[in-house]
């Protein structure tokens, strides 16, 4: 099945480009340290998912590019074309003359309705190119105006037009000290709206990725490009083909569907986080060896201690001992800093996998009590190594990991809202105080649901 990627705004387009680059170079430059046959079927599955090759020498990304200003799209298209290995379809982008000016209301209430038809036509066309459409992967930031506001609008339109397709939104969480002053307003509005129409939100925090670039990748002067490459690597490690069943014979045909099924058992909980291991500069890879038990041990501790990278993990954090607490008060008895999960998915790529024991992820004490741990944990595997890493492990998790950042954003937005600052910029485009209040309420609900796990 194929995935149509929708790239929105500057952030969405810059990341989208990097994702296709990574995926393409993974299948092109590396052989994955596996059998030729394995590698071929991996490549075919990847192509089906992300590229179409009709009437073109190079693969054409299944993507729609949308921004309200032209500069980013112009640059993205030409960078892809210059790569010589893949490109975007000449006709599948939409832009206007000026951006949404970091105003969510402008993106959502003005640009959205005004350009709905043109945008949905492009999406429709791209969807029709897929023999079988699995769903949509929408990439956007939540701090600006286009990705966030128009992104929320387009997601609603996708939900209406493709009621049975899976919608996964990849959302960039802004730096906490900001690039955009109204980012907390825009984020609150974005999250609350996406929560209504998307199947799941896969979140990357810029602060976290920035730290990975500094501490794990050893990059001195970090650019958005560096950050996007780390994000693209992590996304690739999830969306490249893998076997979803033990001893599976063919690669999963429905990556988005499988993902939702494993990770989103209840519509109240749809915030997904992504961690991977190892992550290091390319030139150090040759000198490093990894053992699966080591990787898995780290990954599990990253999960329960809510560490977002392998450095600085708090090894003191341990799961609560089950049975020692009565259910009603169990969140009080919970050890400090313990990150409770709803569901987890581990994806392993590389050789020597037969002896792997993932039992530590099946431990019922990791999960909220209302779900059967058997349903809460899944793993996908392939012998095909990913992107120059001999072994790599990724974890997609539906857990409390975002509680603090979410609480922060809502708190800051509320603080600003109480002083009525900047509200006039939104009412100008008919987003009223009521709308803000609704969004606050919706997110308070999400916070409270995750808190009481």
């Amino acid at each position, binding site marked *: 099945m194929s995935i149509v990627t929708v790239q929105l705004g*500057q952030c969405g387009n810059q990341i989208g480009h990097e994702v296709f680059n990574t995926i393409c170079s993974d299948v092109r430059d590396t052989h994955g340290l596996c059998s030729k046959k394995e590698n071929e079927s991996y490549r075919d599955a990847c192509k089906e998912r992300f590229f179409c090759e009709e009437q073109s020498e190079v693969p054409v990304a299944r993507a729609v590019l949308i921004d309200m200003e032209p500069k*980013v799209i112009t640059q993205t298209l030409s960078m892809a074309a210059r790569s010589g290995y893949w490109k975007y379809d000449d006709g599948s982008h939409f832009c206007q*003359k000026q*951006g949404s000016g970091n105003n969510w209301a402008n993106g959502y209430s003005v640009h959205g309705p005004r350009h709905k038809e043109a945008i949905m036509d492009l999406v429709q066309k791209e969807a029709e190119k897929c023999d079988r459409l699995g769903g949509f992967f929408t990439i956007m930031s939540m701090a600006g105006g286009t990705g966030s506001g128009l992104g929320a609008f387009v997601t609603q339109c996708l939900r209406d037009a493709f009621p049975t397709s899976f919608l996964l939104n990849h959302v960039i969480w802004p730096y906490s000290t900001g*690039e*955009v002053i109204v980012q907390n307003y825009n984020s609150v509005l974005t999250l609350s709206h996406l929560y209504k129409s998307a199947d799941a939100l896969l979140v990357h925090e810029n602060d976290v990725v920035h730290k990975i670039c*500094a501490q794990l990748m050893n990059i001195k002067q970090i650019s*958005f490009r560096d950050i996007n490459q780390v994000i693209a690597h992590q996304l690739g490690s999830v969306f490249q083909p893998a076997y979803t069943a033990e001893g599976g014979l063919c690669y999963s045909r429905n990556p988005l569907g499988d993902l939702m099924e494993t990770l989103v058992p209840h519509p109240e909980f749809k915030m997904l986080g992504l961690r991977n291991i190892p992550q290091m500069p390319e030139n150090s890879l040759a000198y490093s060896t990894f053992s699966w038990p080591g990787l898995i041990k780290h990954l599990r501790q990253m999960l329960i201690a809510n560490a977002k990278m392998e450095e600085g993990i708090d090894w003191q954090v341990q799961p609560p001992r089950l049975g020692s607490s009565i259910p009603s008060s169990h969140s009080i008895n919970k050890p400090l800093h313990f990150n409770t999960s709803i569901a987890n998915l581990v994806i392993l790529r590389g050789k020597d996998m037969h002896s792997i024991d993932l039992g530590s992820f099946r431990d019922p004490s990791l999960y909220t009590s209302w779900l059967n741990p058997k349903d809460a944990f899944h793993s996908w595997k392939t012998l095909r190594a990913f992107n120059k890493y001999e072994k790599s492990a990724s974890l997609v998790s539906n857990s409390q990991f975002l509680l603090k950042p979410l609480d922060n954003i809502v708190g800051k937005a509320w*603080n600003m809202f109480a002083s009525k*600052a900047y509200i006039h910029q939104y009412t100008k485009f008919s987003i009223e105080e009521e709308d803000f209040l609704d969004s606050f309420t919706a997110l308070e609900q999400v916070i409270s649901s995750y808190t009481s796990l």
Partner: protein
Amino acid sequence: MTQSVVVQVGQCGNQVGCRFWDLALREHADVNKEGIYDEALSSFFRNVDTRSGGDGPDIYKGKICSLKARALLIDMEEGVVNEILQGPLRDVFDSKQLITDVSGSGNNWAVGHKLYGSQYQENIVEKLRKAAEHCDCLQCFFIIHSMGGGTGSGLGTFILKLLEDEFPEVYRFVTSVYPSGEDDVITSPYNSVLAMKELNEHADCVLPIENESLFDIVNKIHQMANSGKLGSTVKRNSLVTSSAGSAKTAQEKPFDAMNNILANLLLNLTSSARFEGSLNMDLNEISMNLVPFPRLHYLVSSLTPLYTLADVNVPSRRLDQMFSDAFSRDHQLIQADPKHSIYLACALLVRGNVQVSDLRRNIERLKPSLHFVSWNQEGWKTGLCSVPPVGHSHSLLALANNTCVKPTFIELKDRFMKLYKKKAHLHHYLHVDGMEQSCFSEALSSLSDLIEEYNELDATKGQSIYEFACMSVWATTSYSGV
């Protein structure tokens, strides 16, 4: 891509505008070596086919034929505009972009605003519409004017209101040169306060500038050059004043060095809208991020490093110094100290080889020394434009919505009151048709309200800051008492 139209009014407006067009041409020539008319150029220039003579049709693609500034040159005397038309920039303007009269406004806001306003209204609107028709997406008007005279101040703010009525969707950014304490125009406090009411009500953003500050900065650069701080590559007189590589070769006028700073301010303000970068900052993002309440739209600006304002090649200094300097008192374009007042919001527009990690590091570093209003503790807006200023590797424009503008306004009000109490020179104003006593009282209360709004924000800051406010009031009074 969007376009902007510059409306330069009065002597100051036109002289600053002239420097802007000169440096804008130089910047685009530096970036665009092929001579192709591109999107970036189109934001401030039309490409006109003049082969059949005169103002031919616009050419949207291909080679540059003849570049015309998207500008309106307005002065109620002829001298300055005529000089421009005889100078090296003459080809950038044509007669359809000019409005002049002969006698000037005599440093009288009322003459500019009321008399010439109504007299030239139709003509101005017609020319504005024409300029707008040449744009396929007009995003912003830039008004450049001084506050102290009659034309720029009076007619300039009249045009501001016209723009609001005629083009409500288009942003209005105003660069206003405020008179200094020892200004030679006696009525400048009247003119400025009357103009302030219009700026309060009709501008989206105002960039206040004080000539004293420009003067100090120019001196500072000269000093750096003479003391050899800039390194041995510096030629003595090749500083801000100079425009090497630009069209201008004629003798330099006293204001040129100062006006080049303003020209750079506008270039840096618009660079991210014109050129690519990894974090674009369109013009419409400026008011969205920096104006939390409609009337509090005065932005204090600073440009660093100072040597980027000059045509000198300097061995690259520490990047972080550029960020520190942007917050220091002596780099601000008005006499103000943002570090000791309250930030409502702050934007950092960076050009050149600077990445997001440099921004993060410097914001983290500087944050503890700055006071942000309680509801906007992380009030930072950033932009990364990959094209540096001509001949340099990087530069920074900081825009601060900060209560430090207040002393400038208080001082203006005091000087206004000194005249107004004695009703000095009032009759010159009141005999102009449409000008009434109430214009003065309303302007005064508009200014007082604005000051009060800043007072309320300052009051949120606590005791130690209150002491400082007293000190700075003391400093200004003793200064003006000399």
